[in-house]
């Protein structure tokens, strides 16, 4: 009895025929339609081999092992990703599924696919470029794969430390909303998952990240961008792993001004998120003079403002405690003694 079913190919055969089909697709000669068909068929077979299907049992471990091995040996992963825009709609999804499955593969403590991608970082850069306007149809699938990669520190590191990373500041604001939103999820994942990696990145790239780029997001015309980036800012600053970055951020008067302006924004949600960043400035027991000066200059206004701020949130005990604390702190603010 044939090992892989009557008409089924072996992993090696599948990979080989897929590779041929992709190459044909890439070449773009007359047989494009047939090539597309072949690509789709093979992708389905590989996907079913990895995930099982309603018609078949989930595959044996060694089958998966063989398949994964073939996939890196043949550089098919890179090929698939570079040609994602040429593959049909369903095929693109299958590529992502195959990629995400093979990524998980582990032998002992080693993650062979992760190691493979480390040697071929262009895979990551090609995926990141999936958010570019040129090919909107590959954005979402690229995003899925990028986020899976981001779960592995080695790959997150490559993404974070690349020049391409700063393009995310543009990607999160593209015109098609769901692409922008997907880009933001990836962006957030890269900045929050691996604590030490993120903290170090933010520390080392502080000026570029915050002053040059993040500031722009907070000031964006796009409501969703403002709201999401403000919330992320709050999460970043309040994560203890980012303590150094936080203390630096809250000692800069420009940041305080921005937060104070966002407190009086039209959107209630943005006001509320701004509150959670603003409170850190006030709670700082070691406020530098410029910060203190701004607070003192607006002492009365702030107290009045805060007293009537979101008074309808009566059920939120924590918020009301924090608000009361801030009001008290501001009331009792005194200028630093003269040196």
């Amino acid at each position, binding site marked *: 009895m044939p090992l892989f079913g009557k008409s089924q190919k072996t992993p090696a055969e599948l990979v080989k025929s897929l590779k041929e089909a992709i190459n044909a697709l890439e070449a773009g000669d007359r047989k494009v339609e047939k090539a597309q068909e072949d690509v789709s068929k093979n992708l389905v077979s590989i996907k079913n081999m990895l*995930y*099982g299907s*309603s018609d078949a049992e*989930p595959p044996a471990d060694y089958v998966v092992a063989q398949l994964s091995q073939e996939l890196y040996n043949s550089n098919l992963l890179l090929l698939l990703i570079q040609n994602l825009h040429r593959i049909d*709609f*369903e095929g693109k*999804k299958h590529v992502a*599924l195959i*990629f*995400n*499955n*093979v*990524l*998980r593969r582990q032998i002992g403590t080693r993650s062979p696919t992760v190691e493979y991608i480390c040697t071929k970082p262009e895979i990551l850069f090609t995926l990141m470029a999936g958010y570019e306007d040129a090919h909107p149809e590959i954005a*979402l699938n690229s995003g899925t794969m990028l986020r*899976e990669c981001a*779960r592995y520190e080695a790959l997150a590191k490559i993404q974070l430390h690349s020049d391409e990373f700063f393009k995310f500041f543009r990607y999160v604001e593209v*015109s*098609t*909303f*769901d692409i922008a*939103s*997907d880009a933001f999820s990836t962006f957030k994942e890269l900045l929050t998952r691996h604590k030490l990696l993120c903290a170090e990145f933010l520390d080392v790239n502080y000026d570029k990240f915050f002053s040059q780029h993040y500031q722009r997001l907070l000031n964006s015309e*796009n*409501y*969703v961008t403002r*709201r999401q980036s403000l*919330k992320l800012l709050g999460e970043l600053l309040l994560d203890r792993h980012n303590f150094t970055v936080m203390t630096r951020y809250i000692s800069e008067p420009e940041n305080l*001004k921005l937060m*104070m*302006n966002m*407190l*009086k*924004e*039209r*959107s*209630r*949600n943005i*006001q509320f998120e701004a509150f959670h960043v603003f409170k850190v400035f006030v709670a700082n027991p070691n406020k530098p003079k410029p910060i203190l000066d*701004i607070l003192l*200059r*607006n002492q009365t*206004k702030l107290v009045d*403002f805060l007293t009537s701020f979101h008074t309808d949130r009566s059920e939120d005990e924590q918020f009301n405690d924090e608000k009361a604390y801030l009001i008290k702190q501001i009331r009792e603010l005194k200028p630093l003694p003269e040196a």
Partner: protein
Amino acid sequence: MCSNSLADYQFTKVLKHGRFSSVYKANCVGNNHSIVIKKFPLEHGNDAELKKLFAEIQCCRQFKHPNINKILHCFTAECDMFVLYPYMCFGACQILLESIFTNGFPEALIALLFKDVLSALMYIHMNDFVHGAVKAGHILLDNQKAVLTNFHESRSFIKHGVKIPVLHGVSQEKNLNWAAPEVLDQNINGYTEKCDIYSVGITACEMANGIQPYFETQPTLMYTEKIRGNVPSLLDRSTYTMLLDDQGKMPFENSMTRRTYEIFSQRILSDDFHQFVEICLNRNAENRWSAKKLMTHAFFKQCRHSTISDHIKKCRSELDNNSIIDDESMGQLDDRDVNECREDVQWNF
């Protein structure tokens, strides 16, 4: 149709005002092609709700099937998000149940619609997703076909490159009457894509009887009933006796229900239809047929004899009378939201 500017759209009619969204009929300025625009005031949503909304859109984008509602475009303007869909002229089946088919859709039309719905479900299940909210309100109709919509309850079996055999999430739907017993059960066994098939069965009863099963029943009673294996059924001459109470009398007072009762006690729904519903509503999920297999059930033989437009034509006149005239005064949507902008406060920097 890919413009991100509100000014490029002409809003012609309000279709629905919901808690979290409003639905409008519109067309692009310049052509008369009708579309549907769903407006979400994002300010009204907390972070969790927003996250769910964005996930629904992502999910919808993954499906490409003639019987699944398609997102044409999606953009934000100020605090609102606008999602564009094709215009399905007859709207949701639930609306039709309330207006035209108050005693239920004709069986042949149900067969035609369900063929489309099952086709959509087959595709969704093949993609390792569960729809999670199949009901008449989420089936849209036009002259040619039915489409399945509303993916806010959909879930995938594939997480991070691994396929899990069952799901355990609890449904967030406000109305759980269509939910399968194994979903409500929340036990160790979890549920599979067969929960959609059960919902198809409930929807069949809803569309045949004119009203959803368990309507105005306490959720806890509905839950208890389902867990114990009680199932709703199609009401016709063969089954109407269960409407009678212990003494064999009709337990209603008003003339409306009396008339409905009379209609039900006279009509005959095919055996195939009854069997179809029984298969869908089987207490044990494993015994329910898959969407693919159900499409081959004898119930659908009748689809050969008519088309959706045939049935709609018959009711055309009623529908025309019921549809609202385009509201000319709608014009462009005023997108200025009145929010608490604290213009009065000027910080002293």
